[in-house]
């Protein structure tokens, strides 16, 4: 365990980092001790990645000090970080799959003689490195021939190298199953016992409580606090992460419109997919907004995907307007009047090279088929109507959408679906990464649509946003539904308690 009196291995003081328009790190001070697993938590945009990148020399800090072993260090590039004993394993395994384990392990530091690689000693070196993480695999086997978990261990073995003092694990468990996670945790405990300092970044709260000694929470680039894991309840932790002081939150009174008598539009019964989402029941009524709450990685996006048919469920059944229908592909969903704005706008929403007009008209055109092209005059009329209605800021509807700001791109994607006049609109993080003005506009649009009788399924990481508009909230955790909060039971407090329970 951590000895409080022992001086910290690494301390950072008053670190600031700005990007254009964003204060990514705001006066952050933290200390990390040897033999300690220190969980670093925060929602998207909290500053975790930026902090790690500052520590590993990928970003230069604007100001602040980093002290290692009592000495001030300047980490200007990843080589400096390596030499200081700071090693990182990223979520996306940073190894070369087509090379052997030994080649991967010795890639940057091959034993040579007269400029020639000494493969025999490279192999024995690789064996030693594998032994440190308790892996018994053939160093000559190809990396791809091993499971993701083993690859992850190899990545850790490489990171540890010879003189690692601080190991940063950036979401190492995201693609592991529970046995593999247990194995990783064993390794972490073993390294801890050897005096390694470990920074553990994750979104899974259970894992935080299973392995960490200390928890630091970041929010919007600021350090919220550092806590002993044993002295912090999950509810308090979630409150800190989301920036809500639970005692201050009252059950605010809400006007609940009568949606209980309205017909059910989409009903999911035990719909799930192995490795993606545990079976979920969900009923969506006409004119109802159902919010999906939960931390990152809780299964919000996965539920949206399955509801729309962007991913094919392998369990359960769906009913649409009382009829049992197969809704397994986007095409089938669109035919029934379901629309979906995915979270990843850049890779799954916009088509950057195409113009605003083309992006906006795409879903409507696709539902009409390629042969009946919407006449240009009609396209222009529809597009200018929506540019005005959603106040999309673009100089010209023929401008490539890639040149618009994030908020305006999001409005175009929203308009893409509104022109198809859907009965159910699924929005995954509709306000992610957009400016305040557009944020406000989009929330207003959501409310208007609902009043017009459209049903909405909205996933959001902003609890207050969900509280503001949802008639019903489905709370997800660890890729499964944990509870459903209805009507005037909905409050920030009740949602956070459900997430943390």
């Amino acid at each position: 365990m951590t000895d409080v009196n022992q001086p910290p291995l690494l301390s950072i003081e008053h670190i600031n980092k700005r990007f254009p328009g964003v204060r990514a790190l705001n006066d952050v001070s933290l200390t990390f001790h040897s033999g300690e697993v220190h969980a670093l938590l925060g929602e998207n945009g909290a500053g975790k990645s930026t902090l790690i990148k500052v520590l590993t020399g990928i970003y230069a800090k604007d100001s602040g000090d980093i002290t290692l072993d009592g000495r001030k260090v300047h980490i200007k590039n990843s080589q400096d970080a390596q030499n200081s004993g700071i090693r990182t394993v990223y979520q996306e395994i940073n190894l070369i799959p087509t090379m052997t384990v030994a080649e991967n392990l010795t890639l940057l530091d091959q034993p040579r003689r007269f400029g020639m690689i000494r493969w025999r000693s490279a192999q024995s070196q690789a064996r030693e490195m594998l032994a440190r993480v308790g892996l018994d695999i053939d160093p000559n086997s190809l990396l791809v021939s091993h499971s993701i978990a083993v690859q992850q261990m190899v990545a850790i073995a490489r990171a540890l190298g010879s003189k690692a003092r601080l190991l940063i694990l950036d979401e190492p468990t995201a693609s592991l199953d529970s046995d593999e996670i247990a194995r990783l945790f064993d390794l972490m405990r073993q390294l801890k016992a050897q005096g390694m300092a470990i920074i553990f970044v994750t979104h899974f709260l259970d894992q935080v409580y299973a392995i960490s000694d200390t928890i630091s929470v970041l929010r919007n680039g600021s350090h919220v606090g550092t806590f002993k894991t044993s002295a912090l309840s999950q509810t308090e932790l979630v409150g800190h992460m989301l920036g809500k002081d639970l005692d201050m939150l009252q059950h605010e009174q809400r006007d609940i419109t009568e949606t209980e008598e309205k017909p059910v539009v989409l009903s999911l019964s035990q719909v799930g997919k192995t490795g993606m989402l545990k079976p979920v029941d969900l009923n969506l009524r006409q004119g109802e907004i159902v919010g999906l709450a939960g931390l990152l990685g809780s299964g919000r996006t996965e539920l949206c995907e399955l509801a729309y048919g962007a991913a094919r469920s392998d369990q359960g059944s769906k009913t649409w307007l009382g009829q049992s229908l197969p809704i397994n592909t986007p095409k089938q969903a669109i035919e029934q009047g379901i629309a979906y704005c995915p979270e990843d706008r850049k890779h799954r929403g916009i088509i950057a090279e195409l113009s605003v007009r083309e992006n906006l008209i795409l879903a409507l055109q696709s539902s009409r088929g390629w042969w009946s092209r919407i006449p240009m005059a009609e396209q222009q009329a529809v597009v200018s109507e929506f540019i005005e209605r959603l106040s999309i800021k673009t100089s010209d509807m023929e401008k490539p959408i890639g040149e618009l700001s994030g908020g305006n791109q999001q409005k175009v994607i929203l308009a893409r679906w509104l022109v198809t006049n859907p009965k159910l609109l699924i929005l995954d993080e509709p306000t992610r990464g957009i400016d305040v003005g557009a944020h406000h506009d989009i929330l207003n649009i959501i409310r208007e649509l609902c009043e017009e009788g459209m049903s909405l399924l909205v996933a959001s990481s902003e609890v207050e946003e969900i509280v503001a508009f949802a008639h019903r909230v489905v709370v997800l955790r660890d890729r499964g539904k944990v509870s459903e909060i209805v009507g005037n039971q909905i409050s920030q407090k009740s949602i956070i308690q459900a997430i943390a329970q």
Partner: protein
Amino acid sequence: MRLKRSMRWEARTLAPIISLFLLIVGTALVVPGFLKLSIVDGHIYGSLIDILHRSTPTALIALGMAVVIGTKGIDLSVGAIIAICGAVTAVLTASTELHPLIVLGCAVLVGMVCGLWNGTLVAVFGIQPIVATLILMVAGRGIAQMITGGQIVTFHSDFINAIGNGFFMGLPARVVLAAVIIAITVLVLRKTALGMFLEAVGGNSETSRLVGIDSKLLILMVYVFSGFCAALAGVIIAADIRGADANNAGLWLELDAILAVVIAGASLSGGRIYLGLTIVGALIIQTLTTAILTSGLPAQYNLIVKASIILLVLLLQSKVTQDFIKARVQSFRRASDA
């Protein structure tokens, strides 16, 4: 096409047109009589007509290539398809009594089947286009050799010869044929939503899937179209020499076609189809060849000069160069203001 659609006369779009214009003017200065057109027996002759005549095979396969590249694909097999379809045309004409139109239909059908093969590998089996079409690129000439029995098969048919060297309303018949195909393609792509769907699939296949576009079928169709274009080019080339040469017909022509698409300003990463400019690109390539040959430059310099000028065109199009020129122009203006 994009010009008409969006009225965005950007430097990028203008570059190929200006290049072609400068190339013609430059050649006319060096080669007297280059621009001269004469009418003999009601047929127009001249170097410019000759360029159109010679560029038809490249223009046709470049048309198919532009559409394929727009979907983030590539078709390396068009040269081999030209050889196969040329062989089919020659063998059927030489050794059967079939009507030339039926022969033509068979050749075109064979080209489309070749395209279907490519499309199936890409769309159904998910093989990378460059690898998938490489297979037919290699095997195709072997198939053509099997059809011709390993020999150069010569044939005679007035109808098919006319496709190679005849005239229609004063213009070379093959130019008219290519122009009709190009016009139909432009109409189909831009008067239906097909062009937009293809560009959407090429630009972002995941987004296209989420809006319900059946990208597999579209990709399949695109390779079939490319095979169709290559088949017509194959018939024209065979008709031109009145025979089928399995080894040399259309050799390396796929590279000229890709070059034409690139000169048009399309990116090999897909998302945009510039049909008109691709044809301009094919004309640039042919004008260069003709200009070098008629200017009396020693033949050994031919390829080097051609490559250099194409490099120049591509450099002019690059964003780096254009930003540099813009910055220079601005600082020059500022200096002259001051």
